[in-house]
């Protein structure tokens, strides 16, 4: 059952990602990117990462895709489609070579997997890990500063002179 779900999701994901790269209409590419984000959220559920699936839907499907669609609409009228550039063939060669190398490495490595059942639900455990003394409290505060700097930078860049 889980393998059927995985293969179905994998086919949809690769198809949606290829559509983002291949489609000439930028708006349709953005819509298939939203489909890709949704299927990644479902893939997180198959990996027992329930909190991360919700975060994926909230941030990627909710926020980032809206940002990208707004950007597409604001920059649309002068630019019809997204044709590939001059570097199409070298880029294809580099990507296929990298893909071959990565797949070879993944297949030939003997991964030390643990047979223990996964922890679930994960929300309380992630919260404890993030905010406890010996946990990740310093990166959490640094990421708060990073988000503030990003918001200020975006506002300063977008402000009309």
């Amino acid at each position, binding site marked *: 059952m889980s*393998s059927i779900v995985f293969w179905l999701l*994998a086919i949809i*994901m*690769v198809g949606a*990602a*290829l559509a*983002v*790269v291949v489609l000439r209409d930028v708006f349709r*590419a953005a819509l298939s*990117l939203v489909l*890709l984000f949704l299927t*990644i959220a479902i893939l*997180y559920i198959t*990996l027992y*990462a329930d909190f*991360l699936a919700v*975060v994926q839907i909230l*941030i990627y499907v909710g926020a*980032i895709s809206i940002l*990208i669609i*707004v*950007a*597409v609409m*604001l*920059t649309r009228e*002068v*630019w019809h*489609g*997204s*044709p*590939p*550039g001059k570097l*199409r063939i070298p*880029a294809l060669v*580099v*990507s*296929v070579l*990298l*893909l071959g190398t*990565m797949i070879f490495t*993944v297949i030939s490595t003997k*991964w*030390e*997997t643990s047979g*223990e*059942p*996964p*922890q679930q639900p*994960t929300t309380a455990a*992630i919260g404890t*890990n*993030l905010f406890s003394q010996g946990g*990740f409290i310093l990166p959490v505060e640094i990421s708060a500063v*990073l*988000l503030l700097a*990003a918001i200020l*930078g*975006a506002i300063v*860049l*977008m402000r009309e002179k």
Partner: protein
Amino acid sequence: MEVGLHHYLVLSAVLFCIGLYGVLAKRNAVVILMCIEIMLNAANIALVAFSRYVVPLFLTGQIFAIFVIVVAAAEAAVGIAIIITIYRNRQSVDVDKFDLMKW
């Protein structure tokens, strides 16, 4: 055949390489930003798969994925602000025409 760590890692590699091809080959800056998001999501899938199969009781990979999502959100906001600013000044989102810092 049982789905294991290999399957998720190969799927993540495929998505990463599709995103890499898009970043290298496309000329529309917004599409390049979308392909960067695909690459970040592929890295997230690998992190969560490692977290599930290698250390199922510690969740470290999922916490790393949360920080990757935070950085991706900041990157998307600033990147789209930069693209729209350049579009206002040059009336174009073609990266071949972005040569302001070339001398």
